[in-house]
């Protein structure tokens, strides 16, 4: 997994690419989020547009990241899920946990 970081109108955007699976970049997302939080970001948008593949460990990474941000008083949302990733979030009911959007501009605007 590769993570690139951008700042857009007060929101920290993490552009993820590659796979989020058992063995591939476990812990990477969590440490990128921790870094963003310590740099003072509270509004974090995780862009999964470049992510081709997520398995159950990857779902766990996303959930763990969500909790980390929430516990630090921040907000983490998801952007650009592929159909395959979205299917998995539906099946596991994680779509009820995450705020998901398909358009970057409105995702950015949605942060209060």
């Amino acid at each position, binding site marked *: 997994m590769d993570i690139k970081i951008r700042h857009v109108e007060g929101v920290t955007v993490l552009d993820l690419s590659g796979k989020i699976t*058992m*063995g591939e970049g476990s812990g990477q997302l969590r440490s990128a989020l921790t870094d963003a939080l310590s740099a003072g970001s509270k509004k974090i948008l995780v862009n999964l547009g470049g992510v081709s593949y997520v398995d*159950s*460990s990857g779902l766990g990474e996303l*959930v763990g990241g969500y*909790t980390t941000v929430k516990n630090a008083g921040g907000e983490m949302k998801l952007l650009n899920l592929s*159909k395959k990733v979205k299917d998995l979030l539906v099946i596991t*009911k*994680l779509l009820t946990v995450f705020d998901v959007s398909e358009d970057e501009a409105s995702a950015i605007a949605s942060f209060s």
Partner: protein
Amino acid sequence: MTEPTTDHVTLHLASVLPSVEAVEQTAESFAQKAGFDEDDIGHIALVCREAAVNAVVHGNKYDPGKEVTADFDLTDDALSVRIGDQGSGFNPNEIPDPLAEENLLRTHGRGVFLMRAIMDEVHFRQLTPGTEITLKKHRTTREADK
């Protein structure tokens, strides 16, 4: 993706993570041969991978001297994938429900649940020692015709 020229293959794999990729790719090619649609192929390959991860990680605990077996069987009726390990076993009835409110934010515990959601049948069998899981997905008439 190259389709297999046979309807049955049994693999004996080392307990290392690349074995998990090999199981996934093999499942993908068998699912393709079975004629499942693209979404199903991706899902089937994913859960076979999950079963292999469990065998390598929870079962054999990465010991490269312990084998993971993977058996792929395509009949007119169904695709069956059997994954076995030589670990110390576990009680599948004790797996917590990942959809329960109190488990929704756990970072683990969605693998077997995904297998059950995606496949038509999931069975566990205790080996001595180890665990064998069978994942089965029925072909519809349309798929079997291919």
